[in-house]
């Protein structure tokens, strides 16, 4: 089994979006690819997005799409054995006031992807990014995770370190 890889990068200044940050004070936002300055007409989401949102909503986790509606999405379907998640946008306020939301989300996703791999010889690789937005610093840092579903549970620790830095 491959080892999980976690990378943290600070995104350019124009990644900070006060509107998204405000919307994310009480919920997760699911972002499309190339989400910085994206507009709805051009937004392309990973093909896992609709099922991810349904999964979170079924678990009563507050989440919504940043752009577009469930009924009207353009999706990218890749045919490698990877599970590519939509980018999860998390504001500093959401994380500090409700850290369980992130842990629960990653737990739901981890269990779901493990389920998909049941009976397969290889374990699907999860590719997941979290855009952590700080309204104090007007900055967005991106956590990029690549690895097995079981490693997702370590991401809240990484977020906690970023939150301490705020």
């Amino acid at each position: 089994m491959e080892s999980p890889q976690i990378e943290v990068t600070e995104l350019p200044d124009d990644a900070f979006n006060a509107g998204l940050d405000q919307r994310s004070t009480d919920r997760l936002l699911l972002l499309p690819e190339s989400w910085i300055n994206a507009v709805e007409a051009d937004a392309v989401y990973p093909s896992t997005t609709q099922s991810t949102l349904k999964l979170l909503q079924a678990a009563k986790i507050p989440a919504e799409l940043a752009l577009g509606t469930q009924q009207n999405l353009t999706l990218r379907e890749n045919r490698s054995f990877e599970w590519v998640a939509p980018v999860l946008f998390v504001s500093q306020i959401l994380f500090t006031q409700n850290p369980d939301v992130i842990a629960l989300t990653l737990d739901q996703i981890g269990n779901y992807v493990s389920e998909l791999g049941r009976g397969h010889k290889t374990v699907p690789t999860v590719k997941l990014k979290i855009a952590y937005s700080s309204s104090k610093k007007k900055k967005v840092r991106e956590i990029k995770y690549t690895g097995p579903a079981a490693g997702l549970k370590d991401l809240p620790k990484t977020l906690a370190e970023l939150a301490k830095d705020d």
Partner: protein
Amino acid sequence: MTEVLLPPITVPELGDEYNQAVAESQDYLSLARSSRVQKQLVKKLTTLKDRIKGYKIGAIRSNMEREANMLFHLQCALNAYICFLKLLLAVKTSDYHKAWVLLIDAQEYISVAHRAHHSAGHLDGLSDHLDKVEQVIFPYFNLYNSMGSVIRGGVCTVCSQAFGSCEHIEGRVYWGKLCLRVHYEVVKLDHSAFVKVPQDRRCIITEVYDDGWMLDNFTRDRKKKVGPPGEGYIGQMGGVMFHFPLLDVT
């Protein structure tokens, strides 16, 4: 269409029928065994599978989701055995590409069976047997085709509603059916790549160029003469870029 009423039966009784049919088939999961008997077993298992599907429909109509999922588990397990027998028959007629597709079908049915119902691992033996067959009969494919596309829409296989509108989650089993998005619009084909671990191992290179000939990538025997490659080219290859599996999972 006339509906046929099936005699009442319990899920455990159907489970017993399944166990008996599988026990009978186990002895014939070998290349050396009689093709005549293997074909008979394919018919017998298919008849049983269709009966079980009929009872599954009854369970759905009676609002018994747990029972429907248990019967779906048996449906998928039987499909895995049927594919295995058909794989052996295809190998015997040297239709290796068809045999390869049946191998992957069998492995996927086992994966879906696991999701339909937590079993006691009764399919582990079949899974291991398929692995051994794969290693012994087929060449090793180190790369597969993986295509990327941009899509929209689609319909849910569980409820037939627009996939974005229902609550069903792809890859999960509900009411004896596997949730998949189907009938979506392909807006564009985005890219193609060679990958070591694809989503669909049916997407393989099927023919390769060698010295003026196209070779079958299973037998490595000459298929057709094509002559030397044109200027600037070193050769050509053919393969399966995309496959819509027509699995019996609803």
